[in-house]
């Protein structure tokens, strides 16, 4: 789960990481008032979960409350990479001497938190990793030991900070590490961490991703999960499916994430374009299958349906019943290819064929058929 910039900044504040004064606004009036309270120059920043808001015109400096209100009027409602701007951060403008990068990721290959630091902040860290990897320090932290003074010294040296800034780096890095651990983060990033003209450090942007599996122990986050979803994504979430939308026209339903991806890949290789990833998981009963099929039947992008089930714990007869039930209630008819294999295969096949649905034996054959059908619509 991605957090908005302002949510991350609030976390920063809570963990003793210095941030500029800021307020959240959702109207031009609120933005102007906030600018008035903050006094002097402010930055007005669009709150979106996608990247690239700066290039899209979502970040503006204002010298007066009136100007802040004008910027807010232009930015609110903007669409940035498909995401509508609903909220703004109005923050004190800062006199910047240098911009640094400081982040912690949960590194998959070492299976531990990895501190990333660079004296070149404010830029895209992925881009920097490609072009100047030597400018990024990567130092792992043993989770059983936590952050140690030697990590802090190493980071401070790499960031080319004077010795008297070491204490402040220690405070910021310790806070970021505690934030990372206590909030089950996959990523906790300060970019940029700025050195002010007076030498002090300040976090002026946040990027935080929290592990979805951990949300049960962060109830305040769990409440907010799924807020950026469209209605189909929200419905899939409600039904407990893994669901991702793509640009194609072949709706895909499978059991198992790997099989679903492989099914989509097969469609692609055979010349088709999948409309989605939809994994019904293991052991789904008829009602769950019905929910999945109904979801795609109602989705305008999925012109035809490709259902690929390899039964193990999942029973083919239950799948068949689910499909039939969904079709019975559907308003629109759509082309459909069903491949069914495994537990109770014969019964499933019987149910489907009684209802006029042909069952294909092999995955490649089924995919080819789906691609053909999709060409015809």
């Amino acid at each position, binding site marked *: 789960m991605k957090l908005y910039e302002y949510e991350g900044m609030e976390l920063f504040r809570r963990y003793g990481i210095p941030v500029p004064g800021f307020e959240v606004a959702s109207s031009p009036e609120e933005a102007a008032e906030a600018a008035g309270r903050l006094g002097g120059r402010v930055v007005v920043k669009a709150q979106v979960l996608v990247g690239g808001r700066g290039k899209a015109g979502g970040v503006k400096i204002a010298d007066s409350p009136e100007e802040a209100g004008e910027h807010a009027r232009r930015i609110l409602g903007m669409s940035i990479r498909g995401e509508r701007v609903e909220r703004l951060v109005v923050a004190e403008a800062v006199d910047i001497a240098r911009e640094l990068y400081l982040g912690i990721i949960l590194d*998959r290959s070492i299976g531990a938190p990895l501190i990333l630091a660079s004296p070149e902040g404010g830029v895209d*860290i992925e881009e920097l990793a490609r072009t100047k990897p030597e400018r990024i320090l990567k130092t792992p932290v043993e989770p059983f030991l936590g952050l140690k003074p030697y990590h802090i010294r190493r980071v401070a040296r790499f960031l080319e900070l004077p010795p008297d800034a070491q204490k402040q780096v220690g405070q910021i890095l310790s806070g970021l590490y505690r934030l990372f651990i206590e909030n089950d983060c996959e990523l906790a990033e300060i970019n940029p961490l700025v050195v002010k003209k007076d030498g002090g450090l300040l976090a002026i942007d946040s990027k935080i991703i929290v592990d979805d599996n951990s949300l049960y122990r962060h109830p305040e986050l769990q409440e907010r999960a799924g807020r950026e979803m469209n209605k189909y994504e929200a419905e899939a979430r409600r039904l407990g499916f893994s669901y991702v939308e793509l640009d194609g026209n072949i709706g895909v339903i499978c059991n198992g994430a*790997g099989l679903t991806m492989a099914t989509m890949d097969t469609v692609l290789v055979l010349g088709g374009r999948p409309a989605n990833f939809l994994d019904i998981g293991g052991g789904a009963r008829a009602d769950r299958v019905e929910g999945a099929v109904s979801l795609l039947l109602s989705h305008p992008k999925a012109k035809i349906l490709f259902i690929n089930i390899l039964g193990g714990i999942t029973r083919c007869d239950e799948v068949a019943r689910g499909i039939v039930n969904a079709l019975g209630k559907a308003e629109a008819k759509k082309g459909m290819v069903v491949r069914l294999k495994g537990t109770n295969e014969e019964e499933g096949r019987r149910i489907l064929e009684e209802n006029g649905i042909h069952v294909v034996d092999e995955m490649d054959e089924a995919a080819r058929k789906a691609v053909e059908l999709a060409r015809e619509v």
Partner: protein
Amino acid sequence: MAILLRKETGVVVQGITGREGSFHTKAMLGYGTRILAGVTPGKGGQEVEGVPVYDSVVEARESHPEITASIIFVPARFAPDAVYEAIEAGVELIVVITEGIPVHDTMRFVRYARMNGVTIIGPNCPGVITPGESKLGIMPGHVFKKGNVGVISRSGTLTYEIAYAMTRAGIGQSTAIGIGGDPIPGTGFIELLRMFEEDPETHAVVLIGEIGGDMEERAARYIADSGYSKPVVAYVAGRTAPPGKRMGHAGAIISMGVGDAESKIRAFKEAGVQVAELPSQIPELLSKALKR
């Protein structure tokens, strides 16, 4: 030979009295797995499918010292405790079926197991099967067949699909391992490749990868650098996956510019690994590789 799991391996099922635990205990017993005990705290003294239930792994091992492996069907909130309990009790191989464990928890128990020389398979995995001998997992046993090809996979159902295709083509498996779909698996591709390298009954290996992380790239580098002596055939799922979206598995996500399928496929090809474009091509690639 096979790796990790043999007919003789003594097994304890943690969470045996639950719905999943009891269902798969029956299936594993049916396959021939030597399940000696089950554990559910507070249910000691009961029986499940004729298997005695204990309150703790320590007690189970005291009564059945031949237990060296555990399979865990405990809900995500309690699974880490079950893993630590099994490690403390001296179990050597732990298969964690449980899905949805917070990755910070997994990071800790995976590191701890490694420091203590314990092998963990999973979490969020189908388990391990040595066809014809024993099954420590939830995979349908009948799609597998005793043979000479090792299978290592990040996926569940896709593995059954591919194993089934191999079996129908007459190509059996020495051992098949689903390492799980989470970002930090207890055991990765390289460790298992190493074990298969040393197993004389394994003549070739199938690697089933997917998007997310760089385990495939590291395995490819290992195969190239170590001069791996057995043919490897790979498949990578997720060529259609967009960046930043989780494709079902917690680990199947392209993030921070890392983990797309093209990079993995390229790495395998550069390492001399045969890459199947479709899962259905694997049996044929294997046949060719085994003939050489």
